Structures are given as structure tokens and as C-alpha cells.
């Protein structure tokens, strides 16, 4: 089978194309849950895409943000199977695709892991109270 060369994604497949591998668009409609906050802003999330929460001043704004962010989030859903974390905390798959930014270096990620949990755990509410929250 011949593989496609540098043809742009979504380009029409010529009738005489010597390939049986090509891309098509698949329109998808996703439903979001929107909540009006006490301050009048809106919080929205697509339940089927973990981590898709956005906020905005209007329903149109949160819809636009979700439409922008959902495709990349969809690609990131599922088990996180990275192979490399660089020194800026960016997580990459084997094909070089960046899938996550964990905000810490590999060394920082592992720091303190060997300490164990005993005596080192603080309830969330106590932590928040320490910070006046």
C-alpha cells in the first residue's frame, strides 16, 4: 500500500490517488453543562472531557472557549502514557506530541515520594484555613 505523502490533512482525495489511506472530517456535537455563578459569570464543562472546565462572562464566551479547547482535550483524554518529561515539565508521547504540562521538572516530580504518607498528611480544610480560605 502506498502511504500518503505531504498532502494536507482534509485535502480532497484525487480519483487517481495511489493510496487507500486518507483523512475525513467527522463532525461531533458535544454537550456542556453550564452553571451561572453568583457573580453573574458562567462556568461550563463538557462532562465527557475531564478537565474541560472554562469560565466566561457570557454563554457565548464559554461556548467559544470550549469549542477552541475541546479538540486538544479530546486528544488528551484517557490514560496518560508519556515517555518523556522535559526539564520544563512538559510531557511528551513517543511521537513527540506534547500531552501535558505538569509544571514541575522530573526531579521535582519525584521529590519527597520516598517519604511515605505517615504523619505527613493534612486535611484540605486545614490547609485552606491556614491560608485564610
Amino acid at each position: 500500500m502506498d502511504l500518503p505523502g505531504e498532502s494536507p490533512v482534509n485535502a480532497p482525495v484525487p480519483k487517481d490517488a495511489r493510496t487507500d489511506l486518507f483523512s475525513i472530517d467527522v463532525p461531533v456535537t458535544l454537550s456542556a453543562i453550564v452553571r451561572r455563578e453568583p457573580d453573574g459569570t458562567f462556568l461550563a464543562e463538557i462532562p465527557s472531557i475531564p478537565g474541560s472546565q472554562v469560565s466566561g462572562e457570557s454563554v457565548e464566551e464559554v461556548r467559544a472557549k470550549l469549542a477552541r479547547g475541546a479538540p486538544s482535550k479530546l486528544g488528551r483524554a484517557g490514560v496518560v502514557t508519556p515517555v518523556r518529561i522535559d526539564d520544563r515539565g512538559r510531557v511528551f508521547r513517543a511521537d513527540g506530541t506534547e500531552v501535558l504540562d505538569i509544571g514541575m521538572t522530573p526531579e521535582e516530580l519525584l521529590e519527597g515520594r520516598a517519604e511515605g504518607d505517615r504523619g505527613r498528611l493534612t486535611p484540605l480544610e486545614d490547609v485552606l484555613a491556614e491560608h485564610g480560605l
Partner: protein
Amino acid sequence: VSYAVVLHGRAKREFAKLSGGHKVIAADHLRRLARSPAKLGRPTVSPPFPPGEMIYDFVEDGGFETWHSFTVFFKYDAGESTLIITGIGHSEHPRGIG
């Protein structure tokens, strides 16, 4: 049913480094995570991640110039009634370059 949430010393230190506004945002997300960890969390693979932990990541709008990404590392305690937050990562990104 919501899980109890406790922070490991390391996550507590990382939480303390967040700005005031980001502390509020992170606290809100930690409470959401407590309500549905299975839905929001994603399993990780070790290495490079620590074994047995899950990830919950979210982004927040930082205004015209920046956006922020947060990553919460967590695991269930032995009784599966408590979430142990083992790490909280945060990074700020300029708009327009990913």
C-alpha cells in the same frame, strides 16, 4: 458521596506557592475532584510518573496575555475513602505559542 481530601506535605508546599487567586481556583478544583475522582482523574503510567497515582489537570484563563495549567497528582488511601493529594503542579503560559 464525596471523598475526604488530605494533602501530602509536598502538595501542601506547592499549594502554598500559588497566588491567592490560584489558591481559590485550586481549592475549588480539589473539591470537585473529591466529588468525582474516577471521572476527573486519569491513570498514569510509571515511569516516568510515580506508581499508583492519577492525574487531574485543568486550565484557567489568565486574561489577555496568559493562561495557566494545573496538574494535581493524587491516589486513593487504602480504605478508598480518602484522596491523598501528592502533588500540585502549576505553570503559566503566554498566549499564542501553545
